[in-house]
């Protein structure tokens, strides 16, 4: 059996979110198993199942190289800017 990652959308308007993994021989069985395992209490309005092998992930060893350059760019956040007294709606 193949490993599948399960994503669930709780209700329309929200993102699908990863909730866990299941085993299945094909997509149809994966959807059925995902439904039984992850949505027994009305947790879902929609399910995605994706073969785990289809997911391309970043390497934790590259985390610094990938994500640290964003850390010192504080000017990307609105809180970086000082709004002069008396200025509103900005």
């Amino acid at each position, binding site marked *: *059996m193949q*490993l599948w990652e399960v994503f669930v959308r709780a209700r329309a308007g929200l993102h699908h979110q990863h909730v866990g993994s299941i085993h299945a*021989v094909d997509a149809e069985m994966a959807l059925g198993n995902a439904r*039984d*395992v992850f949505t*027994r209490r009305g947790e879902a309005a929609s399910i995605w199942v994706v073969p785990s092998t289809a997911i391309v992930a970043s390497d934790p060893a590259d985390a610094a190289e990938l994500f640290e350059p964003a850390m010192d760019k504080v000017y990307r956040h609105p809180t970086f800017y000082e709004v002069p007294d008396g200025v509103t709606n900005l």
Partner: protein
Amino acid sequence: MTDAERFDAHVAAEGKVEPKDWMPDAYRKTLVRQISQHAHSEIIGMQPEGNWLTRAPSLRRKAILLAKVQDEAGHGLYLYAAAETLGTSRDQMVDDLIAGKAKYSSIFNYPTPTWADIGAIGWLVDGAAIMNQVPLCRCSYGPYARAMKRICKEESFHQRQGYDILVSLCRGSDRQKQMAQDALDRWWWPSLMMFGPNDDASPNSAQSMKWRIKRFSNDELRQRFVDATVPQAHFLGLRIPDDELRYDDTAGHWRFGEPDWEEFHRVLAGDGPMNAHRIEHRRRARDDGQWVLDAASAHAAKRRRPAA
């Protein structure tokens, strides 16, 4: 700093660990052992209750018990999936269980002769499981912690449905109340054993605490369980089968006797009333179900092949 030192500092600062992160081999091994034992317990734990599915006293009770047992199957699957992220396959874990190489909670090696046992299991066994599991929601290993959060959310209904069964029995005839008392007598001590040996006899605990896998000691959790459970027994009008049980006013705790640790080790080693039956049943489920998997796989393969 070595990798190991960096790792220890990271978890000590409540940092989380994800599957592809570097981790010490011993951390990985400890987690595979603990998570797979936990998964096996959920799956084997379906048997004592499944025993009453067809004989539940009403359709309502039957639907509830079915939902509960189904949840336990789900718990087992969440946990096997969490363990698989550490590089051991589910098939391997199940094979180890059936070969008698893996352990599971000793509590599930006791029989369920009456309907009251189903009440006692929900109330005491799921109750003890909750005590053990809530701190695991903050475990340093991300996939285990996430599985535990999902599980804990579902557990509280399990405990309540068990207590609800006993409330009904204790409000019933004398015979029904006696049934409830007998079940409490059977399950009380094995439930206390679910927290594991006394702290001074639990050599791996300190390392697990350092790694933020474990948060509280076995004895601490056992005390918490007793404090929570004794008043619930009194509400039912039942007697806890422990002559040493008394309330310590100054400490604000219920003091209790020592479980029979020899029995605990005997049952854990395989010599409980139901060990052989539980494993044999699991083996039969695997072997008898194999054709379904084979058929599904053959069907999937056929559909993947383009029509000639």
